[in-house]
């Protein structure tokens, strides 16, 4: 299935190159409202009885003061190159995401000697190389709207740590995957060779199970991200 998608995308990319009338370079930054998926791991299931990672980790009660572990928000930076034909485009590049807020706090667990506070930290970074094909519609040399789909090669590391009076555990999982990808965006043309842009990207996919010592987990690349940036382009049919 994935091989088929890549074959189609590469063929479409080749066609885009033949019919391309514009080449563009995009620099963008933004954020991911929620990244890293559930961040589940084997140790959490076995020792904490947590089966959905960060979605299941928050507990309170027993008179122990805890701080909520919030959904991790990621920062995004990327550089991409786009070939555009009459109404189609092919895009590739590199995008990097890293958690900058959330994913930290404390919960409660009983390891056998009564309830105790557990300090929890989740972190993740990943990068992906998109291969996207789509349509782009221009409105009177003023604006453009684009939508596309494809896949990406994604690589990253997910880490967690749990610390309490009687238990301590940390693990790091590095892996890759080929998530599916979709995007929607728009551009406001500033001049002959530049435009402002912003867009929404959605990735869906995760790595295979990765084992680290006695623990195991997946790196989850699923999630939306919102970015804004600037595009520099060269229209070589107009010259």
């Amino acid at each position, binding site marked *: 299935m994935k091989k088929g998608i890549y074959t189609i995308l590469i063929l479409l990319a080749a066609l885009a190159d033949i019919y391309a009338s514009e080449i563009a370079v995009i620099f963008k930054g*933004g*954020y991911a*409202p*929620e990244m890293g998926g559930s961040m589940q791991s084997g140790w959490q299931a076995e020792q904490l009885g947590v*089966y*959905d990672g960060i*979605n*299941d980790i*928050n*507990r*309170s*009660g*027993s008179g122990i003061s805890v701080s*909520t572990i*919030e*959904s991790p*928000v990621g920062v995004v930076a990327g550089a991409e190159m786009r070939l555009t034909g009459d109404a189609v485009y092919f895009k590739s590049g590199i995008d990097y995401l890293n958690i900058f*807020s959330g994913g930290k706090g404390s919960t*409660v667990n009983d390891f056998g000697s009564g309830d105790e506070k557990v300090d929890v930290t989740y972190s993740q970074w990943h990068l992906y190389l998109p291969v996207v094909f789509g349509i782009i519609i221009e*409105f*009177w040399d*003023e*604006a453009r*709207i684009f939508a596309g789909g494809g896949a990406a090669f994604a690589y990253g590391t997910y880490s967690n740590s749990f610390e309490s009076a009687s238990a301590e555990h940390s693990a790091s999982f590095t892996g890759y995957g080929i998530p599916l990808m979709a995007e*929607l*965006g*728009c*551009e*406001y043309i500033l001049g002959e060779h530049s435009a*402002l*842009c*912003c*867009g*929404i990207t959605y990735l869906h996919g995760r790595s295979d199970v990765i084992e680290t010592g006695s623990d195991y987990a997946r790196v989850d690349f699923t999630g*939306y991200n*919102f970015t*804004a940036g600037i595009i520099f382009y060269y229209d070589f049919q107009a010259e």
Partner: protein
Amino acid sequence: MKRIFFIIIILIAAENLFSAGGKISAGISAGYHHDAGNLSEKPGINADIQQNLSIGGVLKLDMGFLFFRSGCEYSYPVEKGKISDGSAGNVTETSLSYYEVPAYIGINLPIREIGYFYLGGGGSYIFGTGYVKAETREKINEQLFGWGFLAGIESEIYSRVSFIFEWEYMAARSSPVASASGTYDDFYADYTGNRFRFGIIYHFNRYR
């Protein structure tokens, strides 16, 4: 961090509005939030999902190629979340209602003779109410901020009046509000998800 973000976008909005002779619009909207509470995403839970309808006020400032969108919306469950097979422990029913105050800023693309396409980032403040029924009915009283994004179209109906259609995605979860396990409070209200809304807005100073 969130406060700084809000101050920055309000300053940008104000500066652009007054310097670029922006357009101020306000109106009403109605919307739909599928699977409010995200019960279908919780592993192992077999639930009839909750569905919310919303009604609210819209405020939109157009400042050249930038826009700022705010307002206030009330979302109410027309279909409550129900878990009857015990797959969510003690939790048997969810009824999440909330007030949402969005704050988004982004690019506003004028598409001649059609209207506008706009796409922006930001987030929403959520004032969560309602209840989760476990062993007892636990009332929700939560204040949260969730990051998200907004995409919409605006199309003129008549002179100063336009139709809007929007898609918003926002991620926010509360701290635990009820006990599913019977041992700890471990069931939270999840406001993450997609919202779709349409509305009518009136342009106060369209021809300025």
